[in-house]
């Protein structure tokens, strides 16, 4: 069994027809339910549901506070290497882009860790480009061994691995996994991923499930919004999250909502995802999966992030740099994408307090 089996059941589904038939009553019924089914969720993603956003927001806020409390979990990304063999048309690290490439030595990893941990951050998300030659699993493991001295929780956002490799990283001290399918639309996927191992749609699609089987504690998925029509892509992301939660009930499932950002390579997104659309996608997921983590990165502007606190979001990155070596002021590479919220961890912390929420830095203790 794979999420793919679920995905293909919607191959011939007439999304536009469904959206055209959704009534205000359908949206209200979905809003009044405790447990939503897939089509309720899809109704909340419909254009019709846009008229009900305020009600969706009120319910999403209540559900989030009841389930998570008035807290926002904070983390920071740490780029280890930006060598990459893929040709993803939308990504700054695309192998054909003429950019500065770099990879941290273990000493530099320690310097970065020092700089980040001084800000109070306790959860770190480490990232690499896809290059088994430049950033092999053994290198990631070595970095984890350094980072363990600074951070009680370490997550990875690296190229897809085999289950055994995930298990090795879990053994080394990694407890969280993040991977974005980028685009669930299988037909569109090869047009956006022109070369490199990432062309293998199925291997990437099944990676979160392999991570679950390898006993990661947290598995975070997402679609890069803007690559294809967002209502459908959000729907498949939610179905994927729901599938994982059903099959791996003891894993904490989380969903990110990254909107495509400008980067090297001049890619123009095919679809617009405006602020209202992003909010609708987040609210619909919260109503569909009241217990799922929802992550918002510094891709979003300070203003947008301020307003998203209280609308279902539970996790935020803070004080981020998307360049290799970006924290200890010895940047060794270009950035993967431009971040929009450049505020420091301290500023984010104060902002969260001012919104009536508690910034939580530590939510796991290695056992």
């Amino acid at each position, binding site marked *: 069994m794979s999420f793919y089996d679920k995905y293909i059941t919607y191959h011939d589904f007439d999304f536009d027809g469904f959206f055209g038939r959704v009534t205000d009553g359908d949206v209200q019924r979905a809003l009044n339910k405790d447990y939503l089914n897939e089509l309720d969720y899809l109704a909340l993603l419909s254009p019709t549901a846009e008229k009900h956003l305020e009600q969706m927001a009120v319910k999403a806020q209540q559900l989030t*506070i*009841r*389930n*998570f*409390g*008035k*807290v926002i979990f904070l983390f920071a990304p740490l780029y280890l290497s930006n060598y990459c063999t893929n040709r993803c048309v939308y990504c700054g690290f695309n192998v054909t882009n003429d950019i500065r490439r770099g990879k941290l030595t273990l000493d530099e990893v320690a310097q970065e860790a020092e700089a980040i941990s001084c800000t*109070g951050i*306790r959860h770190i998300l480490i990232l690499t480009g896809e290059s088994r030659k430049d950033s092999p699993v053994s290198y990631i493991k070595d970095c984890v061994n350094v980072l363990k001295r600074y951070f*009680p929780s370490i997550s990875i956002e690296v190229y897809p691995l085999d289950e055994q490799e995930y298990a090795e990283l879990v053994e080394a001290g990694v407890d969280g996994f993040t991977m974005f399918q980028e685009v669930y639309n299988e037909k569109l996927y090869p047009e956006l991923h022109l070369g490199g191992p990432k062309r293998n749609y199925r291997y990437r699609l099944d990676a979160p499930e392999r991570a679950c089987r390898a006993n990661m*504690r947290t598995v975070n998925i997402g679609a890069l919004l803007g690559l294809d029509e967002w209502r459908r892509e959000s729907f498949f992301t939610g179905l994927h999250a729901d599938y994982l*939660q*059903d099959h791996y*009930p*003891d*894993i*904490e*499932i989380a969903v990110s909502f990254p909107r495509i950002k400008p980067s090297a390579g001049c890619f123009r997104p095919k679809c617009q995802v405006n602020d209202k659309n992003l909010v609708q996608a987040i609210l619909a997921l919260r109503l569909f999966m009241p*217990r799922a983590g929802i992550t918002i990165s510094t891709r979003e502007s300070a203003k947008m992030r301020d307003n998203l606190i209280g609308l279902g979001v539970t996790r935020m990155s803070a004080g981020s740099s998307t360049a290799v070596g970006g924290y200890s002021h010895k940047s060794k590479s270009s950035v993967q994408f431009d971040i929009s919220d450049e505020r420091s961890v301290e500023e984010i912390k104060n902002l969260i*307090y001012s919104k*009536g*929420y*508690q910034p*939580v*830095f*530590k*939510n*796991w*203790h290695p*056992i």
Partner: protein
Amino acid sequence: MEDSLVIGGRELRSRLFIGTGKFSSNRIIPEVVKSAEVQVVTVALRRIDFESKDENLVQYIPDDCIIMPNTSGARNADEAVRIARLARAAGCGNWVKIEIVTDNRYLLPDNMETIKATEMLAKEGFVVLPYMSPDLMAAKRLRDAGAAAVMPLGAPIGTNRGLRTRELVKILINEIDLPIIVDAGLGKPSEAAEAMELGAAAVLVNTAVATAGDPVQMAKAFNLAVKAGRLAYLAGTGAVKEYAEASSPLTGFLSDNA
């Protein structure tokens, strides 16, 4: 009349326990503790940052409270045991609330793993308070495994739905000779009072206080409700008749000598 609750050799005056995971700021915790007059405060070990000065949750808990670390995040007995040992080693005392959740959709506890962890930790000298789904056989096994109290849920955690498991909790109160502490699901002070009237030894509340508009006032309201419920239980609530009385007594013939 002296009415204290004894758990793990400690005599408690307060029958309200509170959780700390959902407050908008840890700084409010001392005031909440004061207004709730609580003596037992549960803290997730996963949240405690022993190295941080500003963010160490434990520093906000008054010294005269019993810190009851909980094993939130544990997915099996083995993880719960390791968390409990870490907490004790870090100086959090020997009380532990076992919380083992293998279901992230509803956050319902795993009774089987909880029984295993209770047995292991009780043998190691912990005062073990297991959080559980109210099931009589599981409660008996927890008792036999050495639990100091049994903590059935009133409703799924965070739902604020009240004492939905009333009938099952009532059976535990009748059958298990240990303090029964209703943990999770109580959303309003009246529901805490209901649990106490039923004969619960105490209640544990987090979401309802932490997410209230004014947590300090709500803590006070729960404090009063728990006291009222306990008093009512001790006073003996009047019988509530669920049936009508026949106008000619059905057993009247028994005293009829004619």
